[in-house]
């Protein structure tokens, strides 16, 4: 009861820009995985390097990130990941 309720979701990509197999890449083509943490207050997503041979993510190689504060941005249109005031919060997530 004292732990924040969180949902984890993830999505694979073959490249860091949209291409024809971006929606549904075959396992062998996956190079990036987007891991999301969804709480009642925010969604934080980090898109990191992924190795399809050993199914491991490399959180030291971050392609991009997303941070949405749901109270002011329920539709998730205003990505705050690169805003300096959230640097410490993002470090905490990582």
């Amino acid at each position, binding site marked *: 009861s004292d732990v924040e309720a969180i*949902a*984890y979701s*993830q*999505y694979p990509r073959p490249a860091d820009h949209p291409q024809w197999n*971006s929606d549904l*890449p075959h*396992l062998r083509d996956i190079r990036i995985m*987007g891991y999301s943490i969804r709480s*009642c207050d925010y969604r934080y997503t980090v898109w990191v390097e992924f190795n399809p041979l050993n199914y491991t993510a490399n959180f030291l190689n971050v392609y991009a990130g997303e941070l949405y504060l749901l109270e002011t941005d329920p539709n998730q249109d205003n990505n705050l990941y690169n805003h300096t005031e959230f640097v410490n919060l993002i470090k905490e997530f990582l």
Partner: protein
Amino acid sequence: KEKKNVLFIVADDLRTSLHCYGDQIVKSPNIDQLASKSAVFQNAFAQQAVCAPSRTSFLTSRRPDTTKLYDFGSYWRVHAGNYSTLPQYFKENGYITMSVGKVFHPGISSNHTDDYPYSWSIPPYHPSAEKYENAKTCRGSDGKLHANLVCPVAVSQVPEGTLPDIQSTEEAIWLLKAAKEKGSPFFLAVGYHKPHIPLRYPQEFLKLYPLEEVTLAPDPEIPEGLPAVAYNPWTDIRKREDVKALNISFPYGPIPKDFQLLIRQSYFAAVSYLDSQVGQLLDNLDKLGLAKNTVVVFTSDHGWSLGEHGEWAKYSNFDVATGVPLMFYVPNITAPFPQPGKRTFPFIDPFDHVPGKIPPGLVSSIVVELVDLFPTIAELAGLNVPPPCPKTSFDIQLCTEGISIVDLFNAS
């Protein structure tokens, strides 16, 4: 203790566009009625917004990194670990387990058998009309038949004169009757195909959504700060004949606004068609006297973008793609037994229904996940909750990466 039956209803690509989730456009009176007698979770999320990985995940209660399934190309028992499934657990606890329609994702991801006989007591049922879903059965403005995205049909004029979800409802009702006669506890999973594309549904449901009342998504533009890697280019939509004819630029589009309205109109109509099927199924569950000892669970494999952020379909981590409806009806727990002569789930005709007359159920805004389904349904039926998985669980057949959320019913 008498064992409770389970009716597990899974929709395909259904986001939380339901009246009971606050949607003011969609007409979903039968699911709203189920919600009014259920614990309803408003913040429930899939683990990956695409069919096979999500279904394999929630049916094994393991995350995609443990099922090692991120695409449609492998069977977890040989590729990751020989994990027990939710229906298998019930089967091993004395239940007859039955599958109708799309429960597991078909194909290699469920061993081309829907994981039969591991998960099911009898071979899973698939509607014969399923084979026409992607055929040219949609009447175009040229009078010819096409494989369109937007596909309202006259049911009497399509092959076999029926649609897959109608057949699934009929089969599920038949199985309910058979299970009642047999008298042993059952776990019946019914996987409806809609509102998955093509948006193919009985054309009369269009009347519920006059085009002039349909609006665009509140945020139809691609947000400035959205990383390119986060964007999904909705390639499955582009392949349909009517969309292909629009000659939309890849990858960012956009779809012309008038066609966006048509997609949204047909998605909503497909949801109302799904609602009618769910209503008929529950009506029969009730008529058979089974509503008093059957737990009913309703959810979807994931959501679907309807133009938000300039995106369509699933394939992303946005809430509209990962968010799902999730509700649990537990007889005499989430709703009292009905008064003598009263019904629990009478069918509600969406064409006669006046919106706003159905009260909400036990609503919770706590964040939950689809991996929670397995332990939650087990506990609701009176079975032991599977133990939590350790950090590495590839060689453990029965464990859960979710939690039972039954305790949250009280907080609803």
